[in-house]
């Protein structure tokens, strides 16, 4: 029997209210009993979710033109710099931009405040031109007073990420959390089998235009993310063994909520944004059923030493072991701890399941595939300029 279903057939089942939607965790559990062929018959859509630090996030804001108008060149929001080099009254505020006087406060906090409906003080200046004569402005903005707030994140939802430890004799404060000396703790950051790109590792159903649950709103994949890498070694389940693909995401920040967008601060690193991201994956056939049923024990990553330049690999480890709280490292039992919230990831996948099943979250085939091949290189500082 043919187990294939088209996007249209799955959407018709959703519209009729009889699509079977499960979370990626539920699909993994079902696969204990059912082989992919049976699973493909039984389920139509699998929902994923993650809630973790996504540093490469930011927001475009269009403030609207005051009278007389100004070409905003230098802009601060509650004291945090926003990039004003985009026309007259547009700005981009990056999550990791730090307040000049308070290293624990930054762009992520401005984004969270605006999304939550709070007031933010905007100050801007420009040189004054014939068409934009005003030179300075100071006013309070809220999400209701600006034209658009569009979350535009160049690199989110990493397909896997290395786990981090520290073999040196001093404590390191990193974007992978606090790493104690002597490699006595290991931190990891993905939601394992719930993580979106783990469930479609070759991007058969995920591409440009794919709807995304982002920050509580329905946004979309704008493009591949920066540092998109298809060349990382994969395990026998097709999952890359360290950080590989990424997604550039956009969404209407006015529709987002603090529940899924939270400003964070990593000690001696700076600010970042915790963001809830989820994708609904159609189970088109046996092959997709095989991918969405992946279990934590089948997803592996690499433990890297953040105490040494280049973060050398120490060992391969699967997520079931990482999630158990104890792994073996250098022959010793070592504590492993998450940095992204699995509790929130589960809630997100369950919320997305509800939205898909009730027809409130659309499923579209990508309008364009993600790159088949793409690799990442470092910055060659000796290249110099051509004479």
């Amino acid at each position, binding site marked *: 029997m043919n187990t294939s279903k088209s996007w249209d057939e799955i959407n018709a089942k959703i519209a009729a209210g009889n699509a079977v939607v499960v979370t990626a965790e539920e699909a993994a559990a079902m696969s204990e009993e059912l082989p992919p062929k049976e699973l493909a018959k039984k389920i139509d859509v699998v929902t994923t979710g993650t809630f973790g630090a996504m540093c490469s996030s930011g927001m475009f804001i269009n403030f609207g033109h005051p009278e007389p108008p100004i070409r905003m060149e230098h802009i601060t929001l509650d004291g945090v710099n926003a990039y004003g080099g985009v026309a007259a009254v547009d700005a981009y505020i990056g999550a990791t931009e730090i307040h000049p006087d308070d290293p624990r406060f930054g762009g992520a906090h401005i984004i969270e405040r605006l999304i939550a409906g709070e007031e933010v003080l905007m100050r801007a200046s420009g040189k004054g031109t014939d068409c934009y004569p005003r030179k300075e402005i100071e006013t309070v903005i809220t999400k209701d007073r600006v034209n658009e707030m569009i979350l535009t994140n160049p690199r989110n939802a990493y397909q896997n990420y290395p786990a981090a430890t520290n073999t040196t004799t001093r404590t390191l404060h990193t974007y992978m*959390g606090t790493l104690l000396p002597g490699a006595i703790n*290991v931190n990891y950051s993905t939601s394992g089998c719930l993580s979106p790109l783990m469930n479609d590792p070759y991007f058969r159903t995920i591409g440009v235009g794919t709807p995304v649950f982002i920050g509580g709103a329905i946004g979309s994949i704008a493009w591949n993310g920066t540092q998109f890498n298809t060349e990382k070694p994969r395990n026998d389940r097709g999952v890359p063994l360290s950080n590989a693909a990424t997604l550039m995401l956009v969404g209407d920040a006015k529709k987002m909520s603090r529940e899924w967008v939270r400003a964070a601060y990593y000690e001696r690193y700076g600010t970042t944004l915790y963001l809830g991201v989820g994708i609904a994956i159609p189970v088109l056939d046996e092959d997709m059923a095989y991918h969405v049923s992946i279990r934590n024990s089948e997803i592996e990553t690499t433990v890297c030493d953040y105490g040494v330049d280049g973060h050398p690999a120490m060992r391969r480890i699967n997520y079931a072991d990482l999630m158990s709280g104890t792994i073996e490292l250098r022959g010793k039992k070592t504590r492993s*701890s998450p940095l*992204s919230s699995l509790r*929130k990831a589960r809630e997100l996948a369950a919320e997305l399941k509800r939205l898909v099943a009730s027809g409130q979250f659309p499923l579209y085939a990508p309008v364009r595939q993600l790159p088949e091949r793409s690799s990442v290189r470092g910055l060659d500082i000796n290249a110099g300029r051509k004479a």
Partner: protein
Amino acid sequence: MKGKYVLGYSAETASEPILWKLVKEYDIRVNILRAEISPGQEGNMLVEFDVDEERKIQSAIAWIESIGVSCVSVAKRLSWNEEACVDCGACAGVCFSGAIAMDRNSWKLEVDRDKCTACGLCVKACPFACFLLDFGE
């Protein structure tokens, strides 16, 4: 019974042989977990008192306070803003006293302030500043 306390010394009381007296007169097994006392200045000491009769701890604390040294149970020094917490677990990885642990079924944090040794690692590890500890300040 055991309990952890932060003793706050003032410049005047820093030279008192308080721990000696606690051992000799109040029968308390004292374990110093951490001490920060600079010469001629105020300081804090994290101690664990272990005693067979609770009454003796009460009278010891009364005596400590009578000579101008503050004595606060550690359980009262750690505060956790549960409302702001997202249960990410960044704190649990660095808590070796067992005060903060991740429930690996619900993936929610469990905080037992009685086990806290006031090391302060959770305060720095939490990305949302959910933990506060006033030891040493």
